[in-house]
């Protein structure tokens, strides 16, 4: 039995905006009966203001698919196309008070239907061009690399299992799992280098004053609260270039592992958030 939120249950039992708009200004048709879920979204759009005046859906699928569709229509009504296009699957899941992990793909279906409808409104050519560059990774559910990467990036997915929950890729025969793993690895490696590059840039800019202030902030916000949960504490005594002098207080005083705490927690935090050159020394008495 799935642990659905009250909102999912409510929208499943009493879905809003069920139906099909006659002569709609946009249609988004995604999924298929073979995949186990499908959604047809129809929109009425004011051509001048580009505001979505009405939205209706028809969905084949489980409770969370129906609830996600209903949520989507409620979320986009009254919004401009520009605003609506910012909606991600995360927003849909949030609107629903969360979805079970295995059901996240239902929220993605909602987002895709909206994207398809907007592409349809803007002229169908747009979507097709992009498809040419994509590569189908999961043959069973026809999931492309682009869809997988998007799900990883929007939802910060870290495992193959999570990717399956969000996109269904790898959920049937499982043959594509190594490829999903590769995509995940490449994505996160790229992210890590981006972060590093970003940090290096930031650090160069620090003046002495900024640096001292950042060390103070880091000790206040990151280090002390961590120690305080164990009844310990720390006081910043002095800063001399890359050397930081601190004094242990509370239970940290005389704690046999305070040396370890100094290196693996205090210094590690400062290295991570301020500068990798930082060395921390304990001042006693």
């Amino acid at each position, binding site marked *: 039995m*799935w642990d659905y939120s009250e909102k999912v249950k409510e929208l*499943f*039992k009493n*879905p809003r905006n*069920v139906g099909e708009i006659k002569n709609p200004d946009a249609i988004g*048709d995604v999924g298929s*009966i*073979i995949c*186990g*879920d*499908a*959604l*047809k979204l129809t929109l009425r759009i004011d051509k001048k203001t580009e505001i979505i005046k009405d939205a209706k859906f*028809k*969905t*084949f*699928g*489980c*409770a969370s*698919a*129906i609830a996600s569709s209903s949520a989507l229509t409620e979320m986009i009504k009254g919004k401009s196309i520009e605003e609506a296009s910012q909606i991600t699957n995360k927003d849909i899941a949030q609107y629903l008070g969360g979805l079970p992990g*295995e059901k996240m793909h239902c929220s993605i279906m909602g987002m895709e239907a909206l994207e398809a409808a907007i592409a349809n409104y803007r002229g169908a050519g747009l979507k097709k061009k992009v498809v040419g560059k994509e590569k189908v990774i999961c043959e*069973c*559910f026809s999931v492309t690399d682009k869809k997988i990467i998007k799900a990883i990036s929007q939802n910060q997915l870290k495992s193959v299992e999570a990717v*399956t929950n969000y996109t*269904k890729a790898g*959920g*049937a025969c499982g043959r594509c799992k190594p490829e999903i793993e590769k995509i995940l690895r490449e994505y996160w490696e790229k992210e890590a280098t981006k972060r590093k590059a970003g940090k290096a840039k930031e650090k160069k800019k620090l003046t002495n004053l900024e640096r001292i202030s950042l060390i103070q902030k880091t000790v206040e916000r990151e280090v002390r609260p961590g120690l305080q949960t164990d009844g310990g504490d720390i006081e910043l005594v002095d800063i001399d270039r890359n050397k930081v002098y601190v004094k242990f207080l509370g239970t940290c005083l005389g704690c046999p592992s305070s040396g370890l705490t100094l290196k693996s927690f205090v210094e590690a935090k400062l290295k991570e958030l301020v500068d990798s050159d930082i060395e921390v020394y304990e001042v006693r008495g």
Partner: protein
Amino acid sequence: MKEVVYLDNNATTKVAPEVFDAMRPFLTEQYGNPSSMHSFGGGVAKHIEQARERVASLVGAEDPSEIVFTGCGTESDNTAVLSTLKSYPDKKHIITTKVEHPAILNLYKHLETKGYQATYLDVDSQGLFNVDQLEAAIRPDTALISVMYANNETGVIFPINEIGRIARSRSIPFHTDAIQAVGKFCFEVGELSVDLLSLSGHKFHGPKGVGALYVKKGTRFFPFMIGGHQEKGRRGGTENVASIVGLGVAAKLAKENRDVETSKVEKLRDKLEDSILKNISGVRVNGHRQRRLPNTSNIGFEHVEGEAILLLLDEKKIAASSGSACTSGSLTPSHVLKTMGVPVSFIQGSVRFSLSRYNTEEEIDYTIKSIPEIMDRLRKISPFA
């Protein structure tokens, strides 16, 4: 009406009140270990033997010693398969069907990673098993044939006697997973060419956590659970006395009530099924309508999804189950219905109703009344209907 209209008896069944009453003393005063020398413990052993006789009698074993108690149906299946393979270490080929329960299917898949080659036989569009394909699949190094007696999803019954005869003529051990069959229709295992047969207590009003394996006299056997001398060294571990006693009483009740109750259950099942077929468009019965368990009806509802049906049934306090992808926790629908080639527009909307002798006509009438409304609601939402 009861709190729930329980139409999911192939998943598990209500513990019969007589079963519970019989179990109670062994969870309270009579807690002795049947292996003990003192009469307080040792006295319990005779209740286990009585249960063994009752189970033997239900399945038609020649001798009670052919019954080994286990912890569940899955353990019985695992014991049967692994014991046989250990008995014939040079043979590396194993045969089963594509529609087995995961207890066999996943075990076979596991064995494929351990140097075994497996053949998975087909069923036809009505879920029936054609024995001709079996002959063709047999190899000189075939160690075991394992075919279920009745399918848990469709209720379709397989020609176990014919399969057994073929197996015997080629001197290949034959195991049948009879977990859905036992207690639901009459058979005498002694008269079938079966070497090993699995059963599970909670599928016929016994408790959960107890099963049994029939091991025909003369069959080579190695224990799965290695330990003490219990079950004559065939299954180590202190006996689950209360559950074994409960299983015995469930077996006794099943045998006593079998004919009368099955016909009653069958009538109710047919009433439910006929009325759904008559009153709702876009429905089909998955599985052969005659060669089938009397309690099971697997119905495909076109263009609607099974989980949604189950949740709306649940709202009306009707409990059933589905072969749809969404309900399984995996993303693929029932392997049984897929093997049968059930059309995709029906497969996701398949619902299994499985009855028991505790269901009443009133409950079935209530279900018959509830279903059309549910279908209306869901088909209004569906883009395909």
